[in-house]
């Protein structure tokens, strides 16, 4: 069980040979493959990160543009609202003026008609009073 013989050096040589062969066909190529994959992944990651930052920059830019456009539209809207208010006020004032003037005209007409009616009424009053006087006093006395 504990007998040492030529198996020992043969085994040692075999092991060194195995190390050498495995270094050639296992460790070197697969380590290279692993490192290359690491490099590839890292490269892709860097690339992707770059793209992401670029995209984020674009998004920020577009957001700025959108904000600008929104502000513009807001100002246009406000302008339009102000314009509309102005026009509204103007139109209202005009209409009120027109109404005022029409009302005045109407009032004048009414006044005129009133005066005319008063005049005709006075004449009629005169005539009627004359007739009444004539009837009461007789025609000779009146004249």
């Amino acid at each position: 069980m504990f007998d040492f013989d030529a198996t020992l050096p043969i085994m040692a040589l075999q092991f060194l040979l195995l190390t050498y062969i495995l270094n050639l066909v296992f460790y070197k190529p697969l380590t290279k493959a692993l490192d290359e994959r690491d490099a590839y992944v890292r490269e892709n990651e860097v690339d992707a990160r770059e793209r992401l930052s670029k995209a984020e920059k674009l998004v920020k830019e577009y957001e700025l543009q959108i904000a600008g456009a929104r502000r513009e539209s807001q100002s246009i809207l406000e302008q339009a609202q102000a314009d509309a208010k102005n026009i509204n006020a103007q139109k209202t004032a005009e209409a009120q003026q027109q109404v005022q003037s029409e009302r005045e005209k109407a009032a004048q007409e009414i006044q005129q008609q009133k005066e005319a009616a008063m005049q005709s009424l006075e004449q009629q009053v005169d005539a009627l009073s004359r007739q009444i006087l004539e009837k009461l006093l007789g025609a000779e006395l009146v004249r």
Partner: protein
Amino acid sequence: MEILDGLTVINSFTLAELEVGEHFLWKIGNFSVHGQVLITSWLVIGLLVLASVAASQNIQRIPSGIQNFMEYALEFIRDLAKSQLGEKEYRPWVPFIGTLFLFIFVSNWGGALVPWKLIELPSGELAAPTNDINTTVALALLTSLAYFYAGLSKKGLGYFKGYVEPIPILLPIKVLEDFTKPLSLSFRLFGNIVADELVVGVFVLLVPLFVPLPLMALGLFTSAIQALIFATLAGAYIHEALEGHGEEEHG
């Protein structure tokens, strides 16, 4: 095995069936070699190389199948080395620590999962390569050489100054440590694997069906942990040699 011949009590008890210490000996010149260990180690090495070649012959950016699995293994090994050696110095040591882990892990699990008993050998039986003390001692000695190499290549001969710092009284202990490190590494791995196989073997002798299954599962778990520990400790020792200050001491 000589002692067992004298122990009639144990001999009548079926321990002999476990074939502890039997080897399938080959002769190469004047040297004898444990054939069953080499055969399984070749199978393990072949499996590892095949899996690696299959994983790396057609590398895709998006991994699938065997490539995915081996990349998972490689990342595990890299994390292991990184946690022991630090971000700066782990890269050149990944092959050594990783191969330690993979070889021990595949050996342990191969020994536990493959029914080697079905293959008849003239003597001895096929089992995990780490079941043999030669394998574990070889791996442990290589680890020692690796951390000496790490210290010497990093600091030159100044590495040996680390033996008398902070106080020279500790010099014998530090020299002793250099011997206990490979000893404990090899005996830990060897003992765990042999203990697993012995326990499973004894249980199979006592109750052949179903009862050994939880123990086998425990064995799988332990052998995986042992592979992890061997690799972790190798990393820790190398790191210690690179740093120079040996304040950390593990079993």
